[in-house]
């Protein structure tokens, strides 16, 4: 057995356990230190992942695949986690009492995501998915003194369990029809039976829940609103990316269903997700709910890349996941800072932010514009890659819907910008930005702008990863 394939995961598991022990032996006064330890550990993990590029092999009887695709996705998760910890450290430390295990659970969630990106069979996939999801159930309810957080946790638990059940049912049907749990050994298209199709549909529904695609999205606004904001950021970004990582493995790694058959399902999902997500985001007055709906719409764009089902499409998915992660965490970081200062997450409290804290105002504007796909931000390049992949196959309508809806999304993103730049602040006191937060938002700003102007830095890497996914 080649344990080198598992070195990132082993390091992550070890790191999580060490953190757990540390959180038990240190007192409450050491909270701050624990945040720093988490950051240091995550940075080391990120470094380890860089040594894993180019391995491109599978192991453990095919249940584990370590290709560049998996490594790239793991980096997306780790970078999201790092940014979230940087931005959310003080917020978490404002929590009541036992906040120490917060980081532990975050690391375990991260481990689950890594497993999802590398899974080579249904069982590994399911267990890693559950590792991630269960950690999130707890993280969502973590603000123990807040009723809203508890409510969100309960909702997420019930709906999440339902979706897990659907996935599990789908998996058992697929296994029954295929006789194997390995993606690579799934039977070829010609022998696809009704049961296999049914199982695949259930998998789509289950994963649709994880990535919050319409019509499986109902949970996300409530839970995004109720959860502690750093958790919301992590949930919106990393768990969604992990859902996509797994979805790609299941649907493109093997051939459980003929592409022609499921293309229709994915296409319809993508279309309604883009349309409904964007339209419902328009009337929102709370920033977290608005970002929740916007992230639903973002899932729709990424689904278009999945629909293309070729290296160009996967390249789009990978590139977009990364910049979506950075821009979205950047926006949430600003929300965290403003929420800490004002105690509210209404869009109205952003009024006059340009006077109170120009850095946060600029970061928010740039990140939202990137999410909207306005050049020269990175989001535009990402959308270009996603939509040109599907257009290259002669299918134009998803690109139409995508581009038009993303221009409509400018409407609600700009409304936030309007409040930030036009209004005079109600309370002119400047908002303090501590060093961790400053680092997080500056990084988000820099990445979003630099990748928009010079995307080759990332797209070379993501293209290689996409090719490795198809064994090229």
């Amino acid at each position, binding site marked *: 057995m080649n344990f080198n394939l598992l070195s990132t995961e082993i390091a992550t598991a070890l790191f999580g356990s060490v953190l757990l022990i540390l959180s038990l032996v240190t007192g409450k006064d050491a909270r701050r230190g624990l945040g720093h330890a988490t950051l240091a550990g995550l940075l080391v993990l990120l470094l380890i992942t860089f040594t894993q590029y180019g391995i491109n092999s599978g192991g453990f009887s095919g249940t584990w695949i370590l290709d560049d695709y998996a490594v790239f996705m793991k980096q997306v998760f780790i970078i999201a986690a790092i940014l979230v910890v940087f931005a959310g450290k003080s917020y978490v430390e404002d929590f009541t009492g036992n906040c120490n295990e917060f980081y532990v659970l975050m690391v375990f969630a991260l481990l689950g995501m890594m497993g999802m990106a590398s899974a080579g069979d249904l069982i590994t996939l399911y267990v890693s998915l559950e590792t991630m999801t269960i950690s999130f159930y707890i993280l969502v309810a973590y603000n123990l003194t807040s009723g809203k957080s508890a409510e969100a946790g309960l909702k997420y638990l019930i709906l999440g369990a339902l979706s897990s059940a659907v996935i599990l049912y789908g998996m058992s049907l697929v296994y029954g029809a295929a006789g194997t749990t390995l993606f690579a050994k799934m039977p070829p298209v010609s022998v696809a039976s009704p049961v296999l199709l049914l199982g695949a549909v259930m998998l789509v529904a289950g994963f649709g829940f994880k990535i919050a695609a319409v019509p499986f999205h109902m949970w996300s606004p409530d839970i995004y609103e109720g959860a502690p904001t750093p958790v919301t950021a992590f949930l919106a970004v990393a768990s969604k990316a992990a859902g996509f990582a797994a979805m790609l493995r299941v649907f493109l790694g093997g051939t459980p269903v003929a592409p022609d058959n499921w293309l229709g399902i994915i296409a319809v999902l993508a279309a309604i997700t883009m349309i409904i997500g964007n339209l419902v985001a328009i009337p929102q007055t709370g920033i977290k709910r608005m970002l929740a709906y916007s992230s639903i719409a973002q899932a729709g764009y990424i689904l278009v890349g999945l629909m293309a089902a070729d290296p160009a499409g996967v390249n789009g998915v990978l590139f977009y996941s990364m910049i979506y992660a950075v821009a979205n965490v950047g926006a949430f970081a600003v929300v965290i800072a403003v929420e800490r200062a004002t105690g509210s997450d209404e869009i109205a409290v952003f009024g006059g932010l340009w006077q109170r804290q120009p850095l946060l105002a600029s970061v928010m504007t740039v990140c939202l514009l990137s999410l909207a796909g306005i050049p020269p931000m990175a989001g535009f390049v990402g959308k*270009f890659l996603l939509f*040109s992949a599907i257009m*290259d196959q002669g299918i134009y309508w998803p690109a139409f819907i995508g581009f038009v809806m993303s*221009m409509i999304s*400018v409407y609600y993103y700009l409304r936030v910008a309007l409040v930030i730049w*036009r209004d005079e602040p109600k309370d002119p006191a400047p908002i303090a930005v501590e060093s961790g937060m400053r680092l997080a938002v500056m990084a988000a700003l820099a990445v979003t702008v630099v990748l928009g102007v010079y995307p080759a830095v990332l797209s070379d890497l993501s293209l290689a990863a996409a090719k490795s996914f198809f064994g090229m």
Partner: protein
Amino acid sequence: MNFSPIAIALLAPIVGAMLLIFIPKDERRLIRWIAAFSMGIALLLSLAAYFMYDFVKGGFQYTISIPWVKELGITLALGADGLSLPMLLLTNLIGFSAIFASWNIDKRTKEFFILLLLLIAGVMGTFVSLDLFVFFLFYEVVVIPIYIMVIIWGSSKRVTKEYAGMKLTIYLLIGSAFLLVGLVALYLNAYPAGQRTFLMSALAQASFSESFQIYCFALLAFGFGSLLSMFPFHSWSPDGYAGAPTAVSMIHAGVLKKIGGYGLLRIGVLTLPLGAKFWAPVIALLAVGNVAYAGFIALAQKDLKYVVGYSSVSHMGYVLIGLAAMNVIGVNGAVANMFAHGVMSALFFAMIGWVYERTHTRWIPDLGGLGHQMPRVATGMLLAGMAGLGLPGLVSFVPEFTIFIGSFAAYPVLAVLAIAGVVITALYTLRVLANVLFGPRRAEFDDLQDIKGPEMVPLVVLGAVLILAGMFPWYLMDMVNAGVQPIVDTVLAKVSQMTALGGGVK
């Protein structure tokens, strides 16, 4: 790398904007002068580029080409030919004037001038980029500064500035969404994967099937058309201009709109000649809609900015019908008219800006006899108005005349209808001028100051161009012809060749 005046002209406002970031926001004088200085450099360089253009050599000159994203075939390529140079000059003339037209802005001056310089740089970039991707990038870059400028420095009259800004932005962005689909389709269909490029010159040489051309040209025509306020996608234009601050109105009506016509010609007609041939009659028909419909609406307007807003929609009809004629004369006229209308509408908006700043109203019935108190503003308005109705000796006479000749050959009936539109133009222009400038002296305006000092710059610069280009039209027409002739020749050759092969395209 060889010296390229246009690249430096493009950099000047960007460098200026960066400099401004470091200036304390209370140093208003310094901020204004830095903005003016950087635009001055850009203007001088573009003048130099205009008059140093080598007609014998022709084609694109002052080119720069830097590979940017190799894998996607994106090149940072700049250059200018007879089509882009008038547009570049126009941008800088108006940009330079717009700085002075905003001389009295005291609210968040620093941010205003940074955004204004970025806006000008973005517009300039679209006209000199030879790469489709870079072209689109520059085009989209201007949208957000415009939005912010409208909502902060705009004015709420008939519609609120928030509404105006959002309408402007969303209309342009939806148009650009269609445009983007068209451009990406063009890029993907031109060459197989691996050899793809966004270079316009390479795309123009690719061959596309006829059905694709028709489909794709429709997308481009919708995108560029809504930017050019083609009927019936024009409704953003009057509302947007009314809400926007003077400088934005000047740049928007003066040059930004012209990106639509420029793109339609450079990308649409040149790369998709059969599509253009197919849709030209429809565009000609819509163009008459522009001229007549917007003209009649302008007649009924009581707000000065709305009159000019609708008049600019109406004038774009002439540009469209000239383009739709698809012969050298018509297209020459269309391009020259874009230049003419740019100068004229920018001057008009600048003067309206001064009137509004002093009287705090743009409501025509409330104004009157301003010629007594503000002779200089009155001169400017008069010049702009006369140019608008095509008075010989001013800039727009020759272009409009050329358009009529060109379009008459292609669409006699529509051309006659469009010429009839000039009468409407004359009616509303003269009505406005008479009501606002002439008539008895009104006591309530007696303490108003006429424009002086730096405020005179828009009048002097744009007014001088109006007259000079009217007196010596060949400086403009020769340049335009040098750009248009090769394009139209290529297109006609392609169309006739394809027709011969394909067995007849009507």
